[in-house]
Every structure is written in C-alpha cells, then in structure tokens.
C-alpha cells in the first residue's frame, strides 16, 4: 500500500512536469475585444443567475461539512493547473484543457462557476488570454455550460450502471468538448456568415476548434480518472461527505 501511494504521487508529478514543458502559445477562449459590446453584456447577464446558484450551493456544502473545503481548493487548483498547460494537438496547433469536469463531479455543476471565474480573471488580467470584455462569454462556456454537460453525462452514466471510472472519463471528456462547442456557438452568433447565417459560421468555428480539442478532451478525461482514484484512495472521508460511495460510513449532519 505504501509504495503504491508513493508511486502514484511520483507519476502524477512527472505527468504534470512533462505537460508543463510543452511550447507555450495562446489557445482557446474568446479573445479580448472580439465580442461586440451587446454580446458582452448579454453573456455577462446570463452568467449571473448561475453564479448566484453556485454561491448558494457552495455555501450549503461548506456549512454541512467544513472539511470539504480542502477538496474544493483542490478542484479549483485542478482547473488552475489544467488551464495553464498548453498541449500540442494533431492539427498542429496548441490548446489547453478546462479542468472543470472534476469540480462538477465533486461539487455539482453550479459551484464550478465560482471556481472558473477566478481562473478566467487571472488569465484575462495577467496573461491577455481571454479577456475582461469576454469574461462573461468565457465564463458561460467554460465554467457553466461545460460543467453542466459533464454533470449530466455523469448522472446518466451512473443511472445506466456504467463503470464508475468510465463515468468520470466520459463526464470530463464531454465537459471539455462541450465548452468548445459553446465557444463556437458564441462566436457564430456574434459573427454570422453572410451566406449561411449563424449555422454556417458555427460549423466553421467548430471545424477550427473541435479537431484540436478532441485529443485534449481525452487527456482531460484520463487525468480526471487518475485524480479521482487518488482522492478515492486517500480522501475517503471527504468524498463520503460529498455523497460518494467509497465504503466509509460517516454521519453527515443535515
């Protein structure tokens, strides 16, 4: 057991390091100034109810079990970490993962909105990556639509009695891909093609983003499975507070 634990940690570190040395160029997110003002406002407003729901759900989780705060920090850090790693893809360009699937699995989709906006603000202000004016649209795609898709997939797979690890994998994969579909949609609505309208534009943007993103979505799915294995091994108490069945019985005060 002991040597196994050490090995998992070493492996995860190597993984993180090897991903960190890949060439760094900008990727994903709608760039600063690229959405016309009225869409900036519209997406921003659309995010507000989700963020409010996220805040309340977060408050409830933490009130019920203060100890889950550590897992929350880890889920946030996971997003922070994954969205800083730009990985080369088969299309010859780089993109990065979202990391929102893990948070959605652990805390439910709305909570991830709060975590995501922190990551996006950091990148928008310091890195000129994404942007302040496109914050609303990017929050919606990465921290709201993606996590909700991931959570829905997870629930459906669990209902169908699919293997737990496969559930984690599919949820994170779909969450990541769906983020890019929404980004394409957002760009398509803002820049409809003259001949084919929004749908033609949508396909064009999707054709740029999707092939790059598919291998990365697979990586995110696998990484999420590894992280969940680590948590299930070492953080049984916290996971059972969050409603996971890991073979530990704990009385949760309602």
């Amino acid at each position, binding site marked *: 057991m002991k040597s196994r634990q050490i090995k998992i940690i070493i492996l995860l570190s190597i993984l993180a390091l090897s991903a960190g040395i890949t060439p*760094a160029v900008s990727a994903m997110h709608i760039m600063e100034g690229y959405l016309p003002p009225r869409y900036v406002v519209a997406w921003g407003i659309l995010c507000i109810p989700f963020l409010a729901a996220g805040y309340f759900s977060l408050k409830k989780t933490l009130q019920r079990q203060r100890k889950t705060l550590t897992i929350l920090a880890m889920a946030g*850090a996971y997003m922070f970490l994954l969205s800083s790693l730009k990985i080369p893809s088969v299309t010859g360009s780089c993109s990065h993962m979202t990391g929102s699937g893990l948070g959605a699995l652990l805390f439910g989709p709305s909570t991830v909105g709060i975590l995501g906006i922190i990551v996006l603000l950091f990148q928008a202000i310091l890195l000129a990556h994404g942007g*302040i004016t496109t914050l609303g649209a990017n929050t919606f795609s990465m921290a709201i639509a993606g996590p909700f898709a991931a959570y829905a997939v997870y629930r459906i797979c669990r209902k169908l009695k699919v293997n737990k690890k496969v559930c984690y994998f599919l949820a994170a994969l779909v969450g990541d891909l769906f983020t890019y579909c929404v980004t394409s949609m957002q760009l398509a609505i803002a820049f409809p093609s003259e001949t084919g309208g929004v749908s033609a534009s949508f396909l064009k943007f999707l054709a740029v*983003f999707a092939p790059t993103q598919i291998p990365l979505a697979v990586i995110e799915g*696998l990484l999420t499975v590894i992280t969940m294995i680590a948590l299930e091994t070492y953080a049984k108490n916290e996971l059972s507070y969050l409603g996971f069945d890991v073979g530990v019985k704990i009385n949760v005060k309602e």
Partner: protein
Amino acid sequence: MSKNKKTVIILSIIIILIALIPIFLLKNAKFGGSDDAGSQVVSEITGSDYKPWFTPVMETVTGKELPSEVETLFFCIQTGIGTGIIFFFLGRFYERSRAKEQKES
C-alpha cells in the same frame, strides 16, 4: 500490483503519448494557439481584418504586448499555484491515511 495502480500507470502512459506524438509526427507544424486560428475565421467571415475594440489590460498598462518570456513566467506561476495546492493537500491526505494504518496495525 493492485488494480488501481495498474490503471494509473496505463492511463499516464496514454496521456503522455497523446500529448507528445503530435510534436514528432507533424514536423512542419508551428503549434500556435487555436485562438489565433479563431481570429482568422472571424476575419474570413467578416471579409476584412476584424479590429478588436478593446486591448488587454496588461497591454494598456505596460504600453506593449506582453513579452513571451514574461508570459511564460505568468503561466508557470499559474501552474505552480495549482500544482502546489493539489499536492499539498494530497500529501496531507496521504500522511493521514498512513498514520491511520500504523495505528491500526
């Protein structure tokens, strides 16, 4: 070897392969960001070079585009913060379950 350990090792190898193979296969590719590809499509659809109507905050403050070395620094800081938090807590969890095991045995 436990089942979990095997899974973790196999998955890690697959991840590394997926991430690294494109670099070796596509010798001529530049590996630029898909963001830039996105802005090209915008120009293509609108028929002219789209002028972003807002410049990033850092560029406004410093008056120039962020040097790529400094950008790498910021990205490393982001990676570092994320990795630090995850493994700090994972280390604590690990120590905790080890202590519990020793107590029981």
